């Protein structure tokens, strides 16, 4: 398997699906002539032309709504948010229209579209630009939410999202765009709703997703040296979430640490902890611990910011407490 950068995997997914289906188009800020603020659409304007690779003015509500209307009519739009932090400008369109029109129309309408873009903190861009919103969007029935951590899934999940008949949010991460990882040759899809076990283990289960997968794998080097063999699960998909894989692992290891970049209050880890405590109550040998972002807006200074998102030290500390 060849190693490619995450951003190139995103681009390849869009290019393959646009070649396959003329109803697919991309719109967003700087996606065409600029080649994408994070270069995820590099070369696509040349390949597909301005009718299908469309630069939007800075109007998130406008172009998100445009995509929803076009999807209602049968097109398969991809709306790129330069960052998902800006998706809040389009919040009404996403949660009232994309998520609910199918239901409110009694099933008359499908909304086959993708919202995708960068998310997360760690880049000293301040509190307004550093949101990890997957838990927020996952609370709305009607939406699907996926968070690829590796190039293979960035491509495979995005291709699945484009082909899905529902609105799917594909939440990427700035820190990952330049990272290279292995991608299968040829045509493939990563199924939405299926977690991936990154490492088999027996001592505890670590449930994580997105950028935190990389942090967990880094911490894992230390854990292995300490003789702790964790089963590491990359959720990949937040909504729907692959509960059978999570529960089976916890029933095997009897211990769970959740690691993710959403906030601690009503975050993804909160949901995992709640469901596991119900479904695996008799199997747990220790309280479920969570390593998340902290209960504060994201500060600018790197000395502070590094402490605000899950890091290796906090993960190891939690694991040691759970296996003690």
């Amino acid at each position, binding site marked *: 398997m060849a190693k490619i950068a995450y951003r190139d995997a995103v681009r390849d997914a869009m290019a393959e699906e646009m070649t396959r289906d003329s109803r697919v188009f991309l719109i967003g800020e700087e996606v065409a002539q600029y080649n994408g603020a994070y270069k995820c659409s590099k070369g696509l304007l040349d390949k597909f032309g301005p009718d299908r690779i469309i630069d939007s003015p800075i109007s998130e509500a406008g172009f998100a709504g445009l995509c929803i209307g076009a999807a*209602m009519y049968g097109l398969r739009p991809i709306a790129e948010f330069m960052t998902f932090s800006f998706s809040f400008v389009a919040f009404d369109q996403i949660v009232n229209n994309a998520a609910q029109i199918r239901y409110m129309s009694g099933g008359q309408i499908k909304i086959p579209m993708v919202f995708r873009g960068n998310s997360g903190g760690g880049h000293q861009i301040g509190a307004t630009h550093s949101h990890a919103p997957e838990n927020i969007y996952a609370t709305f029935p009607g939406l699907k939410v996926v968070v690829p951590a590796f190039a293979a899934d960035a491509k495979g999940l995005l291709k699945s999202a484009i082909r899905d008949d*529902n609105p799917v949010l594909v939440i990427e991460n700035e820190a990952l765009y330049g990272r290279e990882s292995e991608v299968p040759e040829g045509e493939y899809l990563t199924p939405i709703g299926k977690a991936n076990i990154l490492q088999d283990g027996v001592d505890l289960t670590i449930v994580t997703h997105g950028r935190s997968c990389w942090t967990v794998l880094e911490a894992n080097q230390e854990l292995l040296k300490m003789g702790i063999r964790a089963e590491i699960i990359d959720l990949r998909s937040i909504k729907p979430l692959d509960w059978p894989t999570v529960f089976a692992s916890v029933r095997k290891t009897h211990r769970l640490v959740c690691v993710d970049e959403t906030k601690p209050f009503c975050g993804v880890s909160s949901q995992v902890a709640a469901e596991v405590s119900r479904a695996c109550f008799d199997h747990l040998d220790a309280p479920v611990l969570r390593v998340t972002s902290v209960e504060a807006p994201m500060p600018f200074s790197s000395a502070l910011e590094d402490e605000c998102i899950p890091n290796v030290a906090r993960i190891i500390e939690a694991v040691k407490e759970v296996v003690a």
Partner: protein
Amino acid sequence: MATKKKPLPTGAGVLASTHPLPDYGAAPAQSREERIEWYRLMYLTRKFEERSYQSYQTGLIGGFCHLYNGQEAVAAGTFAAVTDADPVITAYRDHAHGLMRGIQPGPAFAELYGRATGVVKGKGGSMHYFNVEKQMWGGHGIVGGQTALGLGLAFATKYLGEKKVCFCYMGDGAVNQGTFHESLNLAQLMQIPVIYVIENNMYSMGTAVERHSAPVELYKRALGYDMLGVRAEAQDFDIVRQVSWTLAERARKENMPAILELMTYRYRGHSMSDPQLYRSKDEVEEYRKHDPIEILREKILAEGIINEKDLDSLEEKVRKEVVAAHDWALASPFPAQSEIYTDIYA
């Protein structure tokens, strides 16, 4: 009280525009059957909503119920300028748009009553009528939210090379929402064939237009986007149809959007719970003298395409249909509990 006196219709038709109106000639003549059918649909809408008014007062309808009484020529005149293949989308005052795009009175009542036989299975209610088969794309509850969706519907027709036009309806209060302004800019910039029809009934809920909009001439909002804006009277079906035809032809042929501000009036409150303390009974009565249904009735009688006796009997038939539809809806079952979890994902 103490809002400014409202302008009454003068018969002038188009009142003003930001740019000269293009000349696409007169809208094609309507057949006798077409004119009678549009009259029937307007009359049906009126009778349907009068019955809805009673049902609301007797507690049969929960939640909101926004009536279109007095505004019927807006939906009818604009719809009659295009075909059922052209998409339309509106806000929550949507009974007329639904009934005039193929929703039958039975399922329409059943939706108001929350029944399984409702047009959207009891999942949307009064504000969320949809009939996709006839390109009626809702029925939307958030003020201004539908303006971006209408843009998208029109974008899709252009993308597919269909030469269609989308009428996107909104109340006068919606002109102050940001999404509307983003949509106007995108429409003009990208040359998308959408016509924003502002149904100016002169009240944003209970706030008169001069108290909610800095420019009271709402068509002038188009100027900020170098877009064509037109203001016209809207109590006369034929006036509405002609100006809508001109803008629709322009949209089809030139892919150009426009704002069409139609001056109208609603006889009832904003929603059923509105005591209307913000206007006088005299104002409402003055407007009732310019009733769109009466105006079209007199016209088709004067044209001799139907006589009084036949028109009376057509109206009698509609009234009976409304009663029967109401009875049928009331006799319909409520949705099964299992319906809570259907239609969430495709």
